[in-house]
């Protein structure tokens, strides 16, 4: 199975080889979709592939090492009330999580494809997109 998670960690935790351990000790395939680090800690968006037990084990390992783990669905949120379905976000979304249906003219947001990169946030004229991490 596959799952996408958002990791947040403190400066201490960022000194540990956590992706190496996920691969070597928990037998997971790790695809780093986004990674950033600054003086207050780090943030990483990973796609984990492997057996369900290994994924669970890997996530337990992260939590035990004080790494915050959240599902990607909690990464970016759209305010459906504010969205005007203009489609400005469609051409800048690198993972095609935002697409326009030519029949209805409506913009749909596929949270599964979103990697919480945030490029849509300041591009949205009605300010309907919000990044939570």
């Amino acid at each position, binding site marked *: 199975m596959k799952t996408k998670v958002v990791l947040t960690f403190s400066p201490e935790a960022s000194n540990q080889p956590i992706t190496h351990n996920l691969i070597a000790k928990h037998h997971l395939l790790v695809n780093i979709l986004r990674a950033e680090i600054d003086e207050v800690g780090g943030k990483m968006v990973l796609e984990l592939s492997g057996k369900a037990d290994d994924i669970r084990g890997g996530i337990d390992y992260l939590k035990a090492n004080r790494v915050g783990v959240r599902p990607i669905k909690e990464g970016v949120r759209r305010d459906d009330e504010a969205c*005007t*379905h*203009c*489609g*400005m*976000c*469609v*051409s*800048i979304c690198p993972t095609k999580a935002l697409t*326009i249906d*030519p029949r*209805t*003219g*409506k*913009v749909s947001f596929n949270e599964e494809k979103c990697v919480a990169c945030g*490029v849509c946030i*300041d*591009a949205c*004229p*009605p*300010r309907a997109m919000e990044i939570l991490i």
Partner: protein
Amino acid sequence: MTADEFKSFVRSNGVKKAAQEVDVVTTGTFGAMCSSGAYINFGHSEPPIKMQKIWLDGVPAQAGLAAVDGYIGATALDETNNMTHGGAHVIEDLVRGKAVRLRATGYGTDCYPRKEIDTWVSLQTVNQAVLMNVRNAYQNYAAATNSSSKTLYTYMGKLLPELGNATFSSAGAVSPLINDPYYRTIGVGTRIFLGGAQGHVIWEGTQFNPGAPRTPNGVPKRPAGTLAVLGDLKQMNPEFVKGLTFTRYGSSLGIGVGVPIPILDEDMARFCAVTDAEVMTAVFDYSHATRTRPVLKEVSYADLRSGEIEIKGKQVPTSSLSSIYKARKVAEVLKSWILKGEFALQEPVQSFPRDRPLRTLDVRTEREAT
């Protein structure tokens, strides 16, 4: 019929039958229209004030119209808020029924002794609140891209470097003036849908440029005609009046405009049958910060809506800045008003000029200006 319905009717039945059977086609557009604003009469205070400077929720409004009239422009900005809160947001808040804070100062006269006021107003407390937009519903508009190496933040949205994307803003074949390219039925006095209420075309819009190049079907290939429009803000619906923010550009007003077009004859039926594949525009390179930006390519709205266009051998993803979803909704609502007898078509009381040169602003001497 809505513009979409009419186009498919013509495809199946031909222009002749469409001209015989269809009376009115409803068009619509919903997009960022920067040259918009509202005039408001606040009523007189006790003691009265002659307002010289006005702020609504921190956004400066234009004074200089007698004592208590003000005009709030969509792109006026609250200077303390990093270009994220402007007149367009104040207008949306008013339409939503919210109260906004009014501050004003004056110099004090014998007849208007008060020098300042700080209070709250809403659409319920003011006399007139009228949306008066001097340039809306552009008849076609440019598409934008960016060939430079850095991201540009423009009124055409976020333009990614190295031709990373392209944006466009016209509603294309459903847009009002695209369906009446020579302004036969749209003129001064035409009754329209404006922001969810009924309004009127009050004049040609500013920068009205009927001389723009056209395709053989009459449709301009560049920004051409525009409309100056007016309607009662108190009757409007927030679904069609939306404050927008363009990062590092400022605010703009998202507004729904719909115009009914009577199918007077086969010519009008032919005009209204135009499709996205037949409406062309040019992709301009916005990395050149000049009024004459280079054209990289001519494309149709069908190309733009396909999701990507090819420029210089590269597949460039496209985005619309106007909402086709809401444009269709405008056309639907207008159609339902007409069918229910709530909206009467108004013949123009005066036609638009067909010869209006588009002038530029140059630095010139007093003598050169006369």
